């Protein structure tokens, strides 16, 4: 008996935590279909007007596109750099390499505001304020720790004799990395790239510090939208993002099982 009470207690707790996590996300869905001109639940019926506004507004679409390509570039660059870093550290595997690995993770521990302030100071000197390059660079630095964590996790499962075997059979070091190591750690690299894209796509603090008018990313436009007027378009944008995320997750999970 006590065991089943405990069971009920824990499963209730579990579901409540899940609900707590998911409800705020789900609440934007009805809000996005509101027929009112402000953020609130639908009053007289459902309406797609805010989706229409979103799809008709060059400002929103442009911001989406900007965030997208910045995210893709950041994912690409940080995955390449992070993977090379990890492979190097893995091959060396001495104390200096272990320290380098820990230093790489430090950015996660620093509060975003402090880090953004640091970027700001540097970017002023480098003339990168309010440029796409500046944002991409900052996002790459923010995403690198996530990539290294994920790629290194994949590497620790790799048998050290595998690259030795490749070289013994005649492959040079670059060839070994390309044909043997990379394919083995691909799941880690893909996960790292997805992490990096997400980090860049919803990054707001750095963007606020580093850009003025010329770079408009989606989080920044949402932020501005909230500042200026509480526009339900934000809910529509959020719903679209949730839908895309769900789609990608389900698709990814199904792909893994096959």
């Amino acid at each position, binding site marked *: 008996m006590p065991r089943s009470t405990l069971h009920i207690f824990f499963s209730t707790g579990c579901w409540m935590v899940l609900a707590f996590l998911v409800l705020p996300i789900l609440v934007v869905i009805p809000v996005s279909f509101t027929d009112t001109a402000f953020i609130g639940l639908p009053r007289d019926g459902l309406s797609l007007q805010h989706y229409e506004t979103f799809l008709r507004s060059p400002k929103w679409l442009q911001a989406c596109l900007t965030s997208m390509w910045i995210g893709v570039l950041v994912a690409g660059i940080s995955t390449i750099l992070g993977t090379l870093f990890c492979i190097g550290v893995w091959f060396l595997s001495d104390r200096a390499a272990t320290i380098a690995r820990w230093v790489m993770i430090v950015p996660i521990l620093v509060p975003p505001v402090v880090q953004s302030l640091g970027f700001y100071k540097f970017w002023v000197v480098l003339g990168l304020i309010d440029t796409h390059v500046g944002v991409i660079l900052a996002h790459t630095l923010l995403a690198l720790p996530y990539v290294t964590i994920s790629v290194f996790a994949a590497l620790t499962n790799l048998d050290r004799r*595998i690259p*030795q075997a490749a*070289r013994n*059979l005649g492959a*040079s070091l670059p060839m070994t990395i390309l044909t043997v190591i990379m394919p*083995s750690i691909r799941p880690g690299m893909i996960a790292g790239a997805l992490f990096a894209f997400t980090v860049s796509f919803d990054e707001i603090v750095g963007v606020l510090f580093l850009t003025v008018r010329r770079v408009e990313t989606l989080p920044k436009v949402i932020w501005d939208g909230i500042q200026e007027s509480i526009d339900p378009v934000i809910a529509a944008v959020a719903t679209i993002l949730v839908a895309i995320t769900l789609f990608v997750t389900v698709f990814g999970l199904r792909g893994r099982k096959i």
Partner: protein
Amino acid sequence: MPNPIISVRNAVKTYGKVRALDNVALDIREGEFLTLLGPSGSGKTTLLSAIAGFLSVTSGSIHARGAEITHLPPEKRDFAMVFQGYALFPTMTVAENVGYPLRVRKMPNAERAERVRECLELVQMSGFADRMPHQLSGGQQQRIALARALSFKPDVLLLDEPLSALDKKLRADLQWELKALHDRLGVTFIYVTHDQDEAMSMSDRVIILSDGSVQQEGAPAELYNRPRNKFVASFLGKSNFVPAQIRKQANGTYTAQVAQESFELSAEPEVNIDGKACLAIRPERVRLGLPGLECFAGRIRQISYLGERCLVLVDHEEFGEILISQTTWNASLPPEPNMEISFGWDCKACVPIAEN
């Protein structure tokens, strides 16, 4: 030795205070089946890795056909290695694994496919070309690792305990196959094992390693019949050791005095004359007899029956325990526990070795 294919000169490898290789020198003949035999941690993998080029020796040098290769990267050496645990590429199919050395050598596709087919046939794995490594059993993976190593026709095949993960029966089968493959292909095999039966049954020559240094090298029978020290005598098969005094006689022959008995030795011993030495005697070369028949008197303490032979443990007041191995079929004296017996050996049966 005429033109060794590989020679290792004074190789030392240290890890901190551990000397994994301690002044190892050896020459490997073209086409021979050489086995490195030693207990766990004796430096076998280290020596093989140094030859393959995965680690650099702290001092000393390695030569291939007279040219120094100490600092040559592994991919330039053309020695194929079969790893302890096989190290098949997990993301490639069996055919891709076997074809990998050919792919990095840029062999055209058609020719490559043909060679892969040939190699899979060689190891009797033709039907498995499209499987992934994790879909194979241990013995099958071992064959694929072998096929992969042979596909680019290397001069030298390095095998690091290739059979250690397999069960006894499969192991025995594969030992025969490996030996047959060696005889057929004429490739030089350097084979690492800690299993003395494996070493004895397959090799042309065995090198015995312990604590990173070579203890003795020679043909299996030579090592078994004339071990140079206590380590070799007890690592390769079993041995009894009895203390002895070695003396040179006036007529130039040598004698060993054991307790009150004196033996004439058949050859000049490789030990200090007049110093403390001992005789190593194989258990199956000790004769068992009724009391008074042989030189030494003893009492049987224990008997263990192994089928074709039985091991008899005899107590002697001076030597301590003496192990005797007897055939069970038609034994002249069926042993019983606590029986008073006598034992002795032929003077040719004992090998004088240094006491230490």
